[in-house]
Each structure stands twice: as C-alpha cells, then as structure tokens.
C-alpha cells in the first residue's frame, strides 16, 4: 500500500493499525470503537483505515470479532536478536498495565498481578528492568509541578521563575500518545493546554540513556537498547516521533561521543501481546517463574506510579502529590474515589489551602476516558472558555491503559462500557 500520508512527519511510523481484507466481514463493529472515524468502507464491504485520521489506539484491533485489524510493526525478532547481542544492555521499560495482563496469555486469570513473575521472566530473557512506574512517579513530579505553576499563575498571577511562558488552564495530561495525536490532528488549538511533560515511556528512555548510562548501568548510551513494553499500539508511533532523541542531543551537547546515526530515546516498543510472544519464543513460562526483584534503581516505584494504568490514576497520583506540595499537610485519605470507576467523565472538587499564598482554593479536576464517546463536549467547553476544570486527565481507551490496544485480547469480554443499545448498521 503506497498511499501518501499527510499527518506524519519524516521518520514517524505512518499508522500502526491496518485491516486484513480477507477477514473483514464489514460488520461495522470497529467503527463504533474508532475515536476519530478513521475506518472507512461501507457497511457490508471490506473496511480500510484512513491512516491520516488514525491515532493508532488499537481499540478496533482488540474489539474486532473476526480478528481483521493487525499491527503493521512487529519487532519481536529484532528485540530477541538484541537480547542475544552481548554488547547491548537491553532495558525494558515496563508500563503499569502490563503487570495485570501479561499473565493472561500464560493461563493466569484476568487481572492477576504478576510484577514479581514478570521481573523474573524478563530478567531471565536478558532484560534489565526500568519500571515505567518509576517514570510515572517522575511524570508526577514534572507534570504536577507544571500544574502547580500554571494554577498559581492563573489564580494568583505568579510569574515564571525563569521568565518562561506559562501555559493556560485547564491543563490536559499528555501521557496518552493516542490522545496527543488526537489533539494534534483534531484540535491543534488545544496544544498550549497539553502538559509539556513527556509521557512516562519517553521520560524513562531519556533518563535511562543519560543518568542511567552514566550512573546506573555505566555503559555508553549508544549500547543501551531501550524497549518500551506497553499495553498500547500508539506507543509504537510515539517512540518514532523525531523530537524524541533528547538523550542523544543531551549527551552530544555535553561532549559525549557523537554517534554515527542519532539514537532515539526509546529504540522500539513491544505491546503486552508482543512480550508474551517473545517470552514464548524464548521458552520462558512466565506463570511458572518465581517472584523476583527488579534489581535496579529504576525498579523502585510507588503506589501512585502504578495506578497510572487505570482511568483516573494519573489524576489521583497527581492530586496526592499536589495536595501535599500545595498545603504542606499530609492527606488523611489517599484514595480519591470520585476519579475511579468506569463512568465516562468523572469530576472532583478538592478544597485546600495554598500554604504559600495563604489562600483557599477549590481545585476542579475531571477524568475522561473512552474519548470516542466522551471527549468532544469537554473539549468544546475548553475552547469556548467555559470549562470549570483546572486539570483534566484524558486516556483514549475505555478503562484506561489496562484495556489498551496492545493488551492481550480477551475473547470473552468487550471494551464497550457505554449503555447496551443496539445499532442498526446501514450504509
């Protein structure tokens, strides 16, 4: 297929998802999951994906009854080759949602938490562990601090410390690569509202190849091969964005060795399904592994980092830290029940006293997931300037990353979290 694509820059993978016309029955189920209307082809005819509109979220892939959509990028063999190459330190950046799903392909019940077994299996395969939960904690530090700065700027007129520009409220989270691409292709005027913080995956890659190379692994960053292990197909696209070579530039600026070709922060991405396939190829049975420790500094994470995989998790983690930073007091109860659960849009108001300014504020936050169904009214409100919220978490997939497009496909379930209404497909 050599159709020209317009919404991709040079070097980016132009769309991760394609449809196999042999298997497609034209039933239109996928269209009801697609957040951007990227699936074309009339009812009854073979469907196709408009890659310019596609945000690579993979919801069609995990929900097609006939298994027609597939991933165009598969680097399992490449990773296996790198694992066998002794020159390379292969660092696995493991997302939170992987540890509750990777057991499923090995026969464990849905939702089994297998962090220890997963560490064991992956270290046996030759990976060093860079838990993405560590990077999630880092994201909270950066994104939370950015939010506090934006909030104090908007509410109290605080100026930036270094005279830089401060973005407007509400601040949107930027962890979800499908959501970021959704903004870039559909609502570019929202870009200033997006947190400038990178997603945890990209932070982990950049940190592993700079600080990690220098202090933890003590190897040349060129010989660190970072593998994102993600519940997500869009992460494959994200890793290919050309700006994500910051570690390479950082090392070069500080007089490090200049590589022949610049290396990306994250070299390749495996989905949870890919990881299960890789382990099976290497004859490693994750279910039979013993619990193991992560073994590196980057495997230390907190409860706030791990809930990133659930819808509302980023918000909850950010609120825990922001509350303490803003008020100087500890939280009586860490759980923010209002932002949990499968309702399409969840909102919460948090009353607190900003210790620095001695003023009471009510923070209004919202959590949106399943953007196909829920995002447009929220976005329209923000664009019209009537949004009551200060901070909005957005995740593309229903339920958050735990139901991402790269997760093991659960045949006895469905991602449909809306009401049970029949649809009468016609044209």
């Amino acid at each position, binding site marked *: 297929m050599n159709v020209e694509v*317009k*919404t991709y*820059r040079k070097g980016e993978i132009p769309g991760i998802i394609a449809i196999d016309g042999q298997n497609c029955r034209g039933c239109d189920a996928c269209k009801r999951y697609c957040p951007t209307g990227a699936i074309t082809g009339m009812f009854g005819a073979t469907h196709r994906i408009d890659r*310019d509109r596609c945000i690579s979220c993979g919801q069609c892939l995990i929900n097609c009854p006939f298994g027609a959509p597939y991933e165009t990028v598969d680097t399992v063999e490449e990773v296996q080759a790198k694992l066998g190459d002794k020159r390379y330190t292969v660092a696995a950046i493991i997302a939170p949602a992987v540890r*509750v*799903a990777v057991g499923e392909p090995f026969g464990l019940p849905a*939702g*089994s*938490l297998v962090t220890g077994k997963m560490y064991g299996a992956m270290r046996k395969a030759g990976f060093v562990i860079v838990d993405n939960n*560590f990077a999630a*904690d*880092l994201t*909270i*530090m*950066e994104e939370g*601090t*950015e939010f506090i700065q934006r909030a104090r700027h908007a509410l109290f007129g605080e100026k930036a*410390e270094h005279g830089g520009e401060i973005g407007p409220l509400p601040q949107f989270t930027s962890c979800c690569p499908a959501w970021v*691409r959704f903004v*870039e*292709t*559909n609502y570019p005027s929202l*870009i200033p509202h997006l947190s400038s*913080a*990178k997603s945890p995956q990209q*932070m982990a890659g*950049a*940190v592993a190849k700079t*600080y990690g190379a220098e*202090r933890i692994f003590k190897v040349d960053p060129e010989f660190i091969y970072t593998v994102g292990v993600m519940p997500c197909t869009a992460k494959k696209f994200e890793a290919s964005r050309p*700006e994500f070579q*910051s570690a390479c530039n950082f090392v070069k600026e500080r007089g490090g060795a200049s590589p022949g070709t610049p290396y990306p922060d994250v070299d390749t991405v495996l989905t949870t399904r890919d990881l299960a396939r890789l382990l099976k190829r290497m004859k490693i049975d994750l279910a039979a592994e013993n619990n193991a420790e992560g073994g590196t*500094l*980057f495997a*230390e*994470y*907190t*409860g*706030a*980092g*791990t*809930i990133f*995989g*659930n819808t509302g*998790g980023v918000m909850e*983690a950010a609120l*825990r830290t922001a509350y303490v*930073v803003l008020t100087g007091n500890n939280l009586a109860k*860490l759980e923010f029940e209002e932002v*949990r659960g*499968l309702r399409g849009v969840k909102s919460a108001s948090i009353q607190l006293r900003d210790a620095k300014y001695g003023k009471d504020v009510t923070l209004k936050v919202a959590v949106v997931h399943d953007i196909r169904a829920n995002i447009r009214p929220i976005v329209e409100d923000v664009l019209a300037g009537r949004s009551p919220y200060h901070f909005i978490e957005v995740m593309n997939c229903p*339920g*958050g990353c*735990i139901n991402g497009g790269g997760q093991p496909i*659960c045949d*006895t*379930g469905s991602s*449909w*979290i809306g009401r*049970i209404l029949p649809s009468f497909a016609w044209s």
Partner: protein
Amino acid sequence: MSEKKKPYDYVESPFMLTRREFVIIGGIIIALLAVPVVWLRSALVNRNYYIKARTKGLYQDDVSSKIRMSHENPAIARFYKEFAGHPLSAVSEELLHTTYVNRMNALS
C-alpha cells in the same frame, strides 16, 4: 364465500393434539427460545469483567506498596539530587519535556 361452497370436504382434525400435549410442547418451544436470550443477557452484562479485574489488580498493587506518593519515592529523590536538580530545571526541560505539532492543516 358461504359455508356450502367450500372447495374441499375434509380438514385436519383439531383433536390431533390433546390440551396437555399442546401446553407441554408449547412450553418447550417458548423455553428454548428464551435460552439464547438469557445467555445473551449474561454475556452483555458481564462483558467488562476483565477491565474491572485488571483495574482491581493495579489498585491492589497501590495498596500493597510501602510508599504511595510519587514525591516520597527515594529513587526519584536520588535522581533529582544526583542529576536533574529539581522539577522543571533546565535538565528536566531538556530531557523530560517536549513540544507538539499541529497536524490538522495537513488534513484539510
């Protein structure tokens, strides 16, 4: 048409079925028709169980963590102490922050 002009002389006896047989066979038909409907209902109601199970798994990981707030992670503290300084520092901005591109114009 009047009764007399009917073009046939015989019909099926309505007594082919006893009342008892009618009720039993009719009941079986209705019951069998209900089976797929009941099955479908339960499949639809339980369709999100795996999403809920995975969600529960992560919250369980949170509860069982010794530290549950990001800023208390000692590894993060060490990273800032040894490397980045503080959030939004120059190093942070270079390594941990990014920019976005407008891709909409390309579409229209």
